[in-house]
């Protein structure tokens, strides 16, 4: 290894680690001959796509591999002492005390039935000889360090009373409760908004620096690594592809796999345009003062007894924009900004409280005729290809459903021909119409979803986070496909994404939403290079981007 001449002894050494899963179809090697070191105070980034074995490596180190998986070879040394062969009891004592772990989803990593104070104090007292009162004080200090305002008051709150970002701070406080020497952070920010993501990375980094703890940061997001880590390893199919300093790998990747991986990552600085919309293009969709309110007030009886008034949330307020024919309009904003609500009104899933959506001059909410017209001409692609396809239906039936529902074809043969044609267009084998969705990977499923959206020959497709559940290389393929189909069928897209780099790459015009209001809109380069509003600037600044590496 290149960094063998490091002065300090490493906190963690992994030597030739092999993790195996005996499955019905034979032995599956999840981690194959992996070796690396982490020095005190160092942040080691581990990147790779899903199934690369990066999370499994983390789980192996902390001894939490789900059976039937097991460590089949190699050694794991913590400060020079082997820990992979410890008896379960001693391993339990090590967890939390010397190795802490942060998981991906802060919404599910806290027990919903206990206050965060109970969970913190329980962990602290398990590892440190403190009294109840001392542990409580320590819990308050930890929360304060993790950036929770008024920690003493918040200690007795339940997890559901915190936002996602705040919960992840609590999770980090929990992982650091006993001052572990090593923190394994498994996708700690993947479930969070960009602006929150930046804060969480900062908290994690500061807390580990001040304690001299080593960090193993597992993520699929190269941007996060670029921003946080000192060194990184790239994993693919259980093996280490490349190891080195972050700048080296991002600027001068050596291996083919790494080069392809880095090429696939869109950047918010990237100005390559993929096609030019004719400037005189007429608007196909016009949104006029669209407003949607949700009535969250409690029932009449509750209001009488609790003396609380009506509570109405304006999810979307007075939003107006136009989408040019054949162009892509990107809608960005954080969760809760109203972008998805907007999209649902555009495709007709929820009615607007006031305002109009015009599709080539026709109000899509005007009566029965407009509705059936809209159903044919407007389609939607959803975020999660695992949830948006009916698992009990064959792919052929899934794609044919809009054709049947809208009676676009008569005979069964004609429908089958159309489905076969659509599958070819999304670069899938027409034979796959006999298969079920679970036989496909995430990227292939999203192609099926695209084929379904195309089957009614729409002009306008709303894509709600079409690639955020996919790996970067798959994301690049899906985006390429969407782009090719746009030219082929003269499609117009509304692209909703929290990933600003994707929007920069795909969109011609961009709208930025914040708290239900469209704060800024304009041509994509204009908005990204010369943002006028503070909110847009903040959003752009908080994106971890690989071009930030010096």
């Amino acid at each position, binding site marked *: 290894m290149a960094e063998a001449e490091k002065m300090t002894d490493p906190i963690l050494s992994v030597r030739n680690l092999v993790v195996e899963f005996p499955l019905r179809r034979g032995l599956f090697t999840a981690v194959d001959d992996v070796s690396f070191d982490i020095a005190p105070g160092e942040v080691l980034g581990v990147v790779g796509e899903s199934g690369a074995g990066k999370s499994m490596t983390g789980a192996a180190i902390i001894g939490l591999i789900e059976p039937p998986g097991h460590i089949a070879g190699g050694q794991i040394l913590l400060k020079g002492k082997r820990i992979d062969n410890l008896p379960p009891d001693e391993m339990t004592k090590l967890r939390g005390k010397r190795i802490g772990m942060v998981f991906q989803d802060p919404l599910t990593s806290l027990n919903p039935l206990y206050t965060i104070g109970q969970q913190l104090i329980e962990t602290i007292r398990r590892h440190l000889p403190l009294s109840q009162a001392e542990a409580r004080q320590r819990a308050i200090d930890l929360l304060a360090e993790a950036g929770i305002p008024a920690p003493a008051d918040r200690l007795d709150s339940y997890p559901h*009373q915190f936002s996602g970002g705040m919960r992840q701070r609590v999770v980090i406080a929990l992982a650091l409760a006993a001052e572990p020497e090593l923190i394994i952070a498994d996708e700690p920010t993947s479930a969070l908004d960009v602006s929150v993501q930046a804060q969480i990375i900062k908290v994690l980094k500061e807390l580990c620096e001040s304690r001299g703890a080593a960090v193993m940061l597992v993520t699929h997001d190269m941007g996060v690594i670029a921003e946080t880590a000192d060194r990184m390893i790239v994993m693919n199919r259980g093996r280490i592809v490349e190891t080195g300093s972050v700048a080296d790998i991002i600027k001068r990747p050596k291996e083919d796999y790494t080069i392809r991986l880095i090429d696939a990552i869109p950047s918010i600085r990237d100005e390559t345009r993929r096609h030019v919309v004719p400037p005189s293009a007429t608007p196909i969709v016009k949104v006029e003062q669209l407003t949607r309110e949700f009535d969250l007030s409690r029932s009449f009886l509750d209001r009488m007894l609790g003396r609380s008034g009506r509570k109405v949330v304006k999810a979307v307020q007075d939003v107006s924009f136009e989408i040019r024919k054949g162009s892509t309009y990107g809608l960005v904003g954080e969760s809760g900004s109203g972008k998805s609500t907007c999209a649902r009104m555009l495709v007709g899933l929820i009615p607007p409280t006031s305002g109009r959506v015009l599709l080539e001059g026709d109000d899509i909410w005007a009566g029965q005729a407009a509705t059936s017209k809209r159903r044919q001409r407007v389609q939607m692609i959803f975020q999660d290809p695992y949830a948006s396809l009916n698992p009990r239906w064959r792919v052929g039936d899934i794609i044919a459903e809009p054709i049947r529902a809208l009676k676009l074809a008569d005979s069964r043969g004609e429908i089958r021909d159309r489905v076969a044609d659509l599958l070819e267009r999304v670069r899938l084998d027409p034979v796959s119409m006999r298969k079920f969705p679970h036989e496909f990977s995430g990227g292939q499923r999203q192609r099926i979803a695209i084929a379904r959206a195309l089957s009614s020959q729409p002009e306008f497709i709303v894509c709600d986070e079409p690639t955020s559940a996919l790996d970067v290389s798959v994301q690049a393929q899906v985006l390429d496909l969407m782009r090719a189909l746009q030219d082929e069928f003269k499609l117009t897209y509304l692209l909703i994404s929290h990933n600003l780099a994707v929007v920069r790459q795909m969109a011609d015009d961009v709208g930025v939403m914040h708290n239900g209001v469209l704060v800024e809109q304009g041509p994509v380069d204009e908005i990204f290079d010369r943002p006028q509003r503070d909110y847009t600037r903040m959003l752009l600044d908080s994106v971890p981007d690989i071009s930030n590496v010096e």
Partner: protein
Amino acid sequence: MLAFILRRLAQSIVVMLVVALISFMLFRYVGDPIANLVGQESRISDIEELRQRLGLNDPFYVQFARFIANAVQGEFGISYRLQQPVTELIVSRLPATIELAFASAMIALVFGVVLGVFTALRPKTFATGVIMTLSLVGVSLPTFLIGIGLIYIFAVELQWLPSFGRGQVTDLGWWRTGLLSESGRRSLILPAITLSLFQLTLIMRLVRAEMLEVLRQDYIRFARARGLSKRAINFGHALKNTMVPVITITGLQLGSVIAFSIVTETVFQWPGVGSLFINSVQVVDVPVMAAYLMFIAFVFVVINLIVDILYYAVDPRLRVHGIGAGK
């Protein structure tokens, strides 16, 4: 919380009124009670007079209003068969049923939860296989068969326990209990086991399924990553999270234990409300049947209310407007 309870009470009243309507219909459609009351040789004028005296000639709604008014005061008329006030009859039989129901609910709950947790924590051991297989027997065998089987083994062959009745009963004035005497306690064992077996296996399988589900959750993995002890994770974190669905089912099952103890009471000649009901059905003793229906509905309504309140106690997410929200 108060609004919630008030709303539930309002709903309960509606439920009770509907049940009252149905049980009142029994009076009119199950058969002519007069025919059962009088002998073959009674004169028409006597029958007519009896009809008049029982108020059976009044219009439907008048009779229904009278029924409701009486029911509210706990008055369900006079049993045709025993010529005693129905309320008195039910109250005198109630302690037997309630003691039996609670004993079997306790058995079902304690063994069900313990076995459910055990089989969830050790999913692949031999003992779990045996328990799971036996539990299938508990679910699929009808109650009367289990009762008769138990009587045959423990009362007839082994002669350890009595085969019928309630044993010696102590009268506390307002409550006649069998729990204070040796023979009373011994008499309770077989019927309680019989009645509990189905609930026991149901609760066990439910706890097991829920527990297996919860053990896969992220917060359990995170609890393990924090180095908490096995005991704290399994019983502190996991078990509490399995409780919400278990409370629902257990509550409903307790209701049905009381309601459907009929079979067990019949098999063991247990002098409870269930056997009173069966005897009344045989002679179309409508006031008793109607009152029994109302009573069972009342039990279910009360249990459901308690279950809803327990949710609040167990799951803080339901206390939407509780402490610290939205701070």
